[in-house]
């Protein structure tokens, strides 16, 4: 068949290749323009592709690769000759119909922005609302379980076991019970303890658990200072702040993570936006807990101010740039102290603990330094 090669004109040194989509055989074909595109292999009946069904497929430059919507999905016609390619292109009116056009891109952008706006709205309004409504509805057993789990973790971080000195414990229980009664918390499973660590802090856990860290106890100079802080933590329990925070944090981090996907470096953006959003949320909760502490202390006829003097001794002046203020999860201590000074009243009730009880409470973790 070598004589056949001689008949091939110069322009077809670039052959037209057809793959029928069922086999990888490379078929050299000729094209005929009838009422449809006829693709003819040397031997065999022509394959007919209607011009309206022909679509462009991806190809390297210099090759026109075509597919047909009514043929086998992987059937491809490859035209390497520029003139022939131009002829075919001119006849196929819907060649590029399936490609992403400028309008298509605009549509993607539009929908993405819509999705983003909706997610942002949910983060700003929906999740806080859901957290506020759902937190009181979380069944007590579940809350207690979450509390038990975090208690185990917290104890593992802060020195293993709660301090056990019996006289100190009795004094501590007395203090907590007086506060609890004044706070109107009916949760009888409430537990409180002192953990042996030098960190000066206190916190509340779900399921009615309040912990004071020894560092705070060491810095406290009288029962009122400690009581105010405990009252603040009871405020968190009363307002279900733990469960609210849990629902809120879980919801926002999930939604913001979803929003940013895997744009490189997104974790920094996620972190930044989360801390701004969450900080404002938890600041509200802290202010509410402060209000609660003021009420409880007044009910007991004691001033709430000493607690915040203790806090100020620990943190010092916090006010700095506006940026840190936006990011802070607590109101600034000096602002809180100023508020408490306004609420300061001379003591009208009996002291919360006797001097002796206070002394034994101070020694609840033993007298050794940490």
């Amino acid at each position, binding site marked *: 068949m070598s004589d056949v090669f001689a008949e091939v004109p110069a322009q077809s040194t670039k052959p037209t290749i057809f793959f029928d*989509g069922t086999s990888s055989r490379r078929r050299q074909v000729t094209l005929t323009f009838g009422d449809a595109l006829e693709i003819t292999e040397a031997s065999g009946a022509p394959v007919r592709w209607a011009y309206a069904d022909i679509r462009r497929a991806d190809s390297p430059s210099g090759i026109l690769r075509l597919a047909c919507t009514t043929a086998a999905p992987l059937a491809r016609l490859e035209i390497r000759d520029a003139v022939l390619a131009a002829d075919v292109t001119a006849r196929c009116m819907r060649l590029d119909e399936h490609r992403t056009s400028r309008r298509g891109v605009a549509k993607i952008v539009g929908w993405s922005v819509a999705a983003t706006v909706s997610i942002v709205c949910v983060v700003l309004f929906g999740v806080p609302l859901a957290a506020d409504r759902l937190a009181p509805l979380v069944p007590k057993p579940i809350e207690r379980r979450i509390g038990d789990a975090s208690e185990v973790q917290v104890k593992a971080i802060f020195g293993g076991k709660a301090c056990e000195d019996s006289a100190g414990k009795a004094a501590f229980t007395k203090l907590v019970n007086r506060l609890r009664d004044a706070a109107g918390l009916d949760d009888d499973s409430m537990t409180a303890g002192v953990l042996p660590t030098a960190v000066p802090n206190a916190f509340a856990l779900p399921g009615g658990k309040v912990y004071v860290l020894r560092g705070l106890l060491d810095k406290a100079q009288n029962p009122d200072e400690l009581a105010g802080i405990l009252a603040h933590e009871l405020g968190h329990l009363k307002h279900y702040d733990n469960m609210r925070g849990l629902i809120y944090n879980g919801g926002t981090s999930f939604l913001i993570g*979803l929003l940013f996907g895997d744009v*490189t470096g997104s974790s920094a953006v996620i972190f930044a936006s989360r801390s701004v959003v969450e900080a404002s949320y938890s600041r509200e909760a802290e202010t509410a807990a402060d209000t609660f502490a003021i009420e409880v202390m007044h009910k007991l006829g004691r001033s709430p101010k000493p607690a915040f003097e203790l806090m100020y001794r620990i943190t010092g002046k916090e006010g700095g740039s506006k940026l840190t203020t936006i990011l802070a999860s607590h109101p600034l201590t000096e602002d809180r102290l100023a508020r408490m000074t306004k609420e300061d009243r001379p003591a009208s009730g009996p002291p919360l603990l006797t001097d002796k009880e206070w002394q034994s409470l101070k020694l609840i973790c033993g007298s050794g330094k940490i």
Partner: protein
Amino acid sequence: MNDMQWTPIGSEPIPPPLPPTRVDFSGNRSEFRKMVTKGAMLELVTFGFYRFWLVTDIRRHLWANTAIDGDAAEYTGRAKELLVGFLFALAILVPIYLAYFLVGIEFERWQGFASTPLFLGFYAFGQFAIFRARRYRLTRTVWRGVRFWMDGSGWAYSFRAMAWGLLVLLTLGLALPWREAALERYKMQHSHYGDLRGDFEGDGWTFFKRAWWLWLLSPIALLIFPLAPFFYAEFKAREWRWWLDGIRIGGVSLSSNLPHDAFYGLYWKVIGWWMLLSMAFSVYMGGGALLLVQLSGVPADQVFGGDNAAKSIPMVVMMVVGYFALALAINIVMRVYLQRDLWAKVLETVEVHNIAAAADVRGSGELASALGEGFADGLDVAGF
């Protein structure tokens, strides 16, 4: 039209073994760069949702410009499939995350931090995702009108990956070559091109012999930081070459003469760009702050430590804009060097032997869903 009469290949007498064919990559670099730049900007505007379209465009570009034996491949996957896969994966992952949270609580109640092993479950899931993502990509790869496809089970693969992973952990990384060989064998033996079945002939021992000294020297790289990119580049080049040498599809085999120092330049260029961009970012921030001080007439310590929100807002806005520009530029650099240039560099060293075995392959295999890609996206795992 002229009557072009050509002899179909099938009717010729069987030719003697041909010399190996090369793989040609004809992609235009500036075209790729423009595509990636535009894509990165759209990614920012769409808060990342454009990633499905950009990833698809990148693959289409790379596939379409890769020609084996004169015929270019084609990527038939579409961005919408990835988006749908991602949404489905999300719908499955959300309850799993919730269950993980609840089970975690029960574990923690029992003992502090006891739920850490649950993390392993996510690792296993990640391995499953890697297998299924590869299946998706392979079934969207078409050459000469016939697609590649994959069978096998993602969970069986995940189990193997976990078991081998444990061994690698116990041997402090020494078993890594055997793990890679075993996993790649599983993947390749379940890969097909039409009715040709793939295989992987690379063995762990060969890889070990090529790279054991890197394992030995790796503590040095941790001490002398500038050496780390050299070590990593060295390791990656050896790994790529070993991987390519082992690939078989039917009677077709690959080989590569990728030099051991092939990636030095690429990694250092990325690091160089990264440093340059960070420097530009600091200059921009410094200059901006200075300009702000000049214009507002406020002393510098008040701009930074300011008690007045109105004065630090321009600073914050500037920082955010600069940060996004930096992220965008690094994004582009990574894609151009570590995807496009690496692809081109590897391909130019590849030789294909006995390509005639793929001259008349019957097409078969079903399309796989993009769910695996969705999982990989949702779990943030990368793998090939």
